[in-house]
């Protein structure tokens, strides 16, 4: 999940589709985000590389739309509806997620377990 500046970012991602829920007069997704290029990356408990300024999922309300869609805490969001989330400010990320005229958001998220799974299968494949 770390990146080398100047090199294209490669990651194993999972597609997560969340339907927004209308609750209390707002369309909510049911999770909280943290991070951004204007934030302090050293305080991110979920990132492996403490200089990673990406957007991370910090909390998921249980039973909410994100939880049902399979989003996990600690996921790094790479894209929202096609918009890149690796180099955005916190506020820009929030705006992309809470557009009022969209009822569905399609996220590309990555997490450590995905990478490990792919590595394992690749390794297993190579041994064959």
């Amino acid at each position, binding site marked *: 999940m770390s990146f080398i500046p100047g090199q294209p970012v490669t990651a194993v991602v999972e597609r997560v589709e969340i339907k927004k829920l209308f609750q209390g007069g707002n369309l909510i997704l049911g999770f909280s985000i943290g991070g951004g290029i*204007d934030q302090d990356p050293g305080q991110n408990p979920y990132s492996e590389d403490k200089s990673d300024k990406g957007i991370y999922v910090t909390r998921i309300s249980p039973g909410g739309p994100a939880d049902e869609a399979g989003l996990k805490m600690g996921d790094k969001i790479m894209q929202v509806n096609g918009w890149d989330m690796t180099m955005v400010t916190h506020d820009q990320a929030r705006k992309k997620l809470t557009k009022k005229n969209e009822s569905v958001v399609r996220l590309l998220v990555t997490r450590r377990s995905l990478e490990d799974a792919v590595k394992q299968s690749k390794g297993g494949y190579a041994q064959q």
Partner: protein
Amino acid sequence: MDNESQYSGYSYKSSHSRSSRKHRERRHRSKSRDSSSRADKSVTIQTPGEPLLDAESTRGDERDDNWGETTTVVTGTSEHSISNEDLTRVSKDLEESIPLECKRFVGPALGGCLSFFALLTPLAFLILPQVLWRDALEPCGTPCEGLYVSLAFKLLVLLISSWALFLRPPRAALPRFFVFRCLLMVLVFLFVASYWLFYGVRVLEPRERDYRGIVEYAASLVDALLFIQYLALVLLEVRHLQPAFCLKVVRTTDGASKFYNVGHLSVQRAAVWVLDRYYSDFPVYNPAVLNLPKSILSKKMTGFKVYSLDENTANNSTGQSRAMIAAAARRRDNSHNEYYYEEAEMDRRIRKRKARLVVAVEEAFTHIKRLHEDEAASSPKHPKEVMDPREAAQAIFAPMARAMQKYLRTTRQQAFHSMESILTHLQFCITHNMTPKAFLERYLSPGPTMQYQQQNGRGRQWTLVSEEPVTSALRQGLVFSLRRLDFSLVVTVTPLPFLRLGEEFIDPKSHKFVIRLQSETSV
């Protein structure tokens, strides 16, 4: 270690001003026949004279029985009886004290003579031709008068500065003569002597007629004397001002230590410097405050008898003692426990007594009030008894005397404060409007040694013990010690480190800050 030979009762004097070396060498030679070793390592710094019993000697006044001491200590027991070591001191005193008083002033006297001689020489140079062959002299006009004025002024400056710098009563009698001073005096003497020699040969013999030349000759002598005085100023006064060494002074009995920065000094001068600071910086030496109470220490070494089965017992002594010590260490003992609890108990007791004392003193001080001038006149109907400070002190001393005595006894300071001294101090505090706390500061913490000195002109006796000759300069790793009868101060010399100071310029506009954000938004 260092072979100490007490330099048989003879001490050299410090010469603050110039005294001739020949005189010293004569005396040195006569006395060195008496002493056994030429290269003596320990010499006496005798600050002139010494009282019979000075305040720093051990006094075995009422030992507090709580410590349970069973040793008998041979000390001076009271003001009126003399113990063994006092006897030896007295005998040493008697043979040294009388010539000491005169010896103190020989140095300055000789120096004074030499400087007087040196200052009169130019005047003599000028006057002698006038007196002897006045008629044959060529008249000399304005240049001579200018030279007269400058000569007079320079002589005045020399006189005043020699008086200010060099003619001071010495405060310490050093064992060896002061190398720089003697060198300078020799220099002055040779200088003046050579000038006289040339004068005698060139002026007096042929009856020189050029008076202006003679005046210029005298003026050149005075110039040279001024330069020698400048040299003396630099060597004697200025050189030791800039710090170059760090001296660590440790007292052997209780480990009180201090660090001082000094310049380039010789060992004996550094010793005097350290002693000056000792009297005002170090807490007073209290022989009654021991490290471990004897009751704890004595338990360790009982109950072991070592039997040696070996034939040659001569070689076995160290083996025996080592075996004993090892066995004692292995044995499970709780003396550290006892020490800890004893210490805690002692602290508690001291604090309790201190609290009682503070309260008693505070109450006592509320009984008296300073009477102002107008009050005495304006209240005739209440005639208060008007007292002077001494009577007031005596009046309020009674309620606090007991608490004070108990406190002093607990902190083992009773030897330092007699009732008379407490009364005097109380009177002093009342006169100067001090609060009870100010009165008590003298008793609550042990003050510097200077506080307890009685003022007498006999001085203090210290012995400088060193492996190096005492006129050598300080250098790294030098160790010498200053010994008194019951304790000594060990001084270690280390040079001050060379400092490399770098520079870093900070632009005042470069101080900028950002806020570390960590926001979490729920979507």
